[in-house]
């Protein structure tokens, strides 16, 4: 089992789904229990990936490779590095959390619902594991189908509009991405006489800048819609608002990261020349910055609680893409960490909307107010989620945001200057939301007797809160895991980066070496 551990992680949800289909539809609780067990097992089985991970290895780990469709050169080839490891852990965790949070909110067509979720789990994991472009594309498209049904069947009032918009928008973008993939595929055949989708082989492609640029923009469309980057973001608020809570959680928590992951895993290493092309970098950075500020400002004026959180995602993901196109270790590391953080914080914020939605069946902010009186525990959890999302130090958001801003600053001071305004606005819309919903007197009679968090709700908030503090206080393990893969990418895109960095450091070093002023003594506990 150990040599196929990655496949086990990948297929556990779908195996669980197949067994789920054998359970008769009337046994609702059995279905619920089974789905939750599969979710938790899916998470537990992924833990050995962390414990056995070699953070000093520069290459992919747990690699498995078989021929799949030899005639076109497609292989079943999977493996992970530090970046995918973190995203996989996020996926398995968020999958089990979103299954748990559906316990009482989903009442009809349970079997289909959980089946869709488990299928989605495998599809997302596949995206983060694939080392073969064909396999990647299959999983990438596979994600759409369960998500489409989750929004379209179990969603809100305008679910059909949202589901179709989501599907068409992202499917169209994916098709354009496919064109880019095919260009790489045929280019490789032209140069080496072999058809392959394998990522490691495609790395040796030799393409002119012009060609790279075309491929870059085609991949860009696929990824930017997924992220979503401004101005490709409007499917997101609709999808988020109409999706059931668990759908929003998984959408924000994991799905959006497929886009940023695509940039990091494919665009940068495969198209290094295009990735440092000044025009491309400028466009991407500017779109990211617009996303940061625009998302925050639009959030500020939302009347719908869930839509507000959705737009805040646009702002946060702007930080992630900005970090990527800072094209330096801090920017990239910060970006990946912020992707994890966004999963945790925004996941929590969506779960929070879900908690009140389940009690009151409305998402309008004006319907609430003074909830801290009746739901003090809930208010505390919300406060933590809000602060984590607003990037308060000692919580996770700060670590990611600050590292990204440091990376952006290194690349271009003005970028960092704009990005920090997003931090200010982030505090504004979140605090205002908190004030309007939690503080003040209870003005709406219907809110007067709302029950506080129950044990099941605690069960899914607790791990997220613990993680938020952990990453905020001791993020060093994350940085260690990311160090090698990020260095690989930076060296691929900017081969002389580290050399130059050392040269700058030496030049900037003060003539007199800093004194060892005080011997840093490890605290004696």
């Amino acid at each position: 089992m150990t040599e196929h551990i990655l496949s086990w992680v990948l297929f556990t949800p779908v195996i669980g789904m197949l067994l789920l289909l054998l359970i008769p539809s009337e046994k609702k609780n059995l279905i619920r229990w089974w789905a939750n067990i599969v979710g938790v097992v899916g998470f537990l089985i992924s833990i050995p990936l962390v414990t056995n991970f070699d953070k000093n290895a520069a290459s992919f780990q747990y690699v498995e490779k078989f021929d799949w469709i030899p005639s076109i050169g497609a292989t079943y080839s999977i493996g992970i590095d530090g970046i995918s490891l973190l995203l996989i852990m996020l996926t398995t965790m968020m999958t089990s959390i979103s299954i748990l949070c559906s316990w009482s909110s989903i009442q009809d067509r349970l079997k289909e619902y959980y089946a869709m979720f488990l299928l989605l789990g495998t599809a997302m994991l596949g995206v983060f594991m694939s080392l073969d472009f064909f396999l990647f594309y299959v999983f990438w498209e596979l994600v759409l189908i369960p998500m489409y049904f989750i929004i379209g069947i179990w969603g809100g009032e305008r679910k059909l509009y949202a589901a179709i918009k989501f599907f068409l928008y992202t499917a169209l973008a994916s098709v354009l991405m496919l064109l880019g993939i095919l260009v790489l595929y045929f280019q490789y055949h032209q140069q080496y006489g072999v058809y392959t989708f394998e990522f490691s082989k495609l790395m040796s492609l030799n393409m002119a800048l012009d060609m790279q640029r075309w491929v870059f923009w085609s991949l860009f469309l696929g990824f930017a819609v997924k992220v979503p980057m401004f101005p490709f973001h409007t499917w997101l608020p609709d999808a988020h608002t109409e999706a059931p809570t668990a759908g929003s959680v998984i959408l924000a928590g994991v799905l959006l990261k497929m886009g940023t992951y695509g940039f990091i895993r494919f665009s940068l290493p495969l198209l290094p020349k295009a990735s440092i092309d000044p025009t491309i970098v400028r466009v991407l950075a500017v779109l990211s910055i617009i996303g940061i500020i625009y998302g925050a400002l639009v959030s500020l004026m939302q009347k719908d609680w869930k839509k507000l959180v959705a737009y805040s995602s646009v702002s946060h993901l702007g930080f992630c893409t900005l970090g990527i196109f800072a094209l330096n270790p801090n920017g990239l590391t910060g970006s990946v960490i912020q992707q994890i953080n966004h999963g945790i914080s925004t996941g929590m914020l969506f779960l929070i909307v879900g908690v009140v939605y389940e009690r009151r069946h409305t998402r309008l902010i004006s319907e609430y107010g003074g909830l801290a009186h009746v739901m003090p525990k809930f208010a505390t959890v919300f406060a933590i989620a809000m602060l984590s999302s607003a990037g308060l130090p000692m919580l996770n958001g700060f670590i990611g945001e600050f590292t990204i801003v440091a990376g952006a600053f290194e690349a271009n001071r003005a970028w960092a200057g704009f990005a920090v305004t997003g931090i200010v606005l982030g505090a504004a819309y979140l605090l205002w939301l908190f004030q309007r919903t939690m503080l003040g007197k209870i003005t709406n009679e219907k809110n007067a007797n709302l029950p506080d968090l129950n044990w099941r709700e605690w069960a899914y908030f607790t791990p997220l809160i613990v993680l938020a503090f952990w990453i905020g206080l001791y993020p060093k393990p994350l940085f260690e895991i990311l160090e090698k893969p990020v260095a690989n990418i930076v060296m691929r895109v900017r081969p002389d980066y580290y050399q130059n960095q050392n040269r700058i450091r030496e030049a900037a070093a003060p003539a007199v070496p800093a004194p060892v002023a005080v011997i840093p003594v490890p605290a004696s506990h």
Partner: protein
Amino acid sequence: MNFLELIWLIPLIPLAGAAAMLFLGRHLPKTVISFLCPGAVFLSFLISAGAVIQLAGTAGKTHEVVQFMWLPALNAQWGFFLDPLSSVMILVVTGIGFLIHVYAVGYMAHEGGFYRFFGYLNLFVFFMLMLVLANNYLLLFVGWEGVGLCSYLLIGFYFDRKSAGDAGKKAFIVNRIGDAGFIIGVLLIWQLTGSLRFVDVNHAFEHGFTAETAAWGVLSTTALMLFIGATGKSAQFPLYVWLPDAMEGPTPVSALIHAATMVTAGVYMICRTHVLFELTPMASNIVAVTGAFTAIFAATIAIAQNDIKRVLAYSTVSQLGYMFLAAGVGAYWVAIFHLFTHAFFKALLFLGAGSVIHGVGGEQDMRKMGGLKKYMPVTHAVMFIATLAISGIPGFAGFFSKDEILAQVWGSVHGSKVLWAVGLTTAAMTAFYMWRMMYMTFYGAERSHVHAHESPKVMTVPLMVLALGSIVAGWFAVPRWWTFLPDSFRFFDTWLAHVFGRENGPTIPDAALTLASVGVAVLGIFVASRLYLRVWDGPLYRAMQNKWYVDEIYDFLFVNGLAKGGGELLGAFDRTIVDGGVNGAGWLTRFSSTVSIWWDTWIVDGMVRLSSFAVKLAGYPVRLIQTGYVQSYALVFVAGVLAIIGFYFVR
């Protein structure tokens, strides 16, 4: 016991107190909380005192304890740093913080949310201690943001009231604006020096850079960015607006924010970075001018306020202006000295005001007080001392520090006579508005209908301790021309010289300057005794009373204009243009599909049908003949045959 190794515990103990309140507070009786939370701060105070005493015995006067690597990206450790500067700060924070805690036990005795309140207070002290004990800028930022958060929580403590929620939010967001500047400043430091650790940064600035005296350079930008951060936290123009609103919180909170924590953070941070500011005289000038302007600007507002806490709030803004003025002219130790003395008398003033408010049943309008002296003798006595201290009457703490600031502004190479004059005028105004407050509250006719009463011991004893401090604190640094006193009376200067050095010492320690500042103070008090109830009604006075309409202007420009207006506008943009584009594409698709259907039905299929129609049309004449009746065919056939036969016959 080696307290120096335990300095990491100093912030941690109040954090433990806060955690205990969060998890268990609901179930704990008030008496337990009343001992636990003040006790936690007191324990920190004891460790601080022990550590500071031991620090004084070391040769280097610095000590660092590093616990672990926190943020590897910027090489920021989770480490604590004790030197003469931070030792002053921790003693102020824990010492005065403890007294405020004790007082709060009495003040909050009848309020709901007792445990929540003390949890927040402890958390506040924790973050402030993180701020002053951090060994690098990033960890300082933990405390920096943390105190902002606590102010949000505490100002909004009465979260039923919308104004409280608003004020808390305002404090946090205005602070965040400053933080944006601070972050950029920190990143610049990181880029310039390759480190964020104070020791390394100061060392690098000292040895690796030359002063920017002639032109504005990157160092000046860095200093300015940090100063923007400081204006947010320390309530300087233009980011002071949150502080006066912050008195929405319970009074002990105001005391904590205004005296012991939070607002001192900016002053501390600037002094911590003094090496950089010494390299950037132009940025330092901005600091000094901003400080002086804020001092006099806030004083003009304080003159016209009728709410007792508002007077004190603006006086804090004004006094902080003094501190920045001192720091701006390079007299860092004096800035810290004023911070130190101010902590005592401002805490005392706020707590005394709280005692008054408590005594008259929650009234804050001074026009409805008066003659309270005989009902609240203790409160009156301590407030009397505090007001003398802030007015700068010799012998009281405020005199020593304010006098030193004015002397430095006059005498320092970076100082100027204009700034000195502004400082002096502010001193006169301070004496005036403070005594106006005293007269309106304690003397003259009784205008209150409530039966006033003195506060309980648990509140008055801390007041008495602070009153003692408001006298004694100043004697740590007496004016230099008081040569009749030994050097031990200038201990504060000597102690901080380990951090700031001595080369910025004043050049003219002049008795005449002292005389001038005392003179204006006395003048201010005298004028106040004559005019305290006078109400002017002119546009100028109204403008002062309305705080120069700054809040309204900000609301118009930034809150409603930029943020909400921008949000509204972009929201509309998003719905109509961006999403409109998507929906438009969808509509276009559907439209083109409709067109296609029409085309398909009428043109494409039409062609097919047209061709069939044409054939049909062409076949029409034939159809007339082709009737399908065998008889007619036979008839035609027969007729044909006959015709052919006929044709041959005829030919």
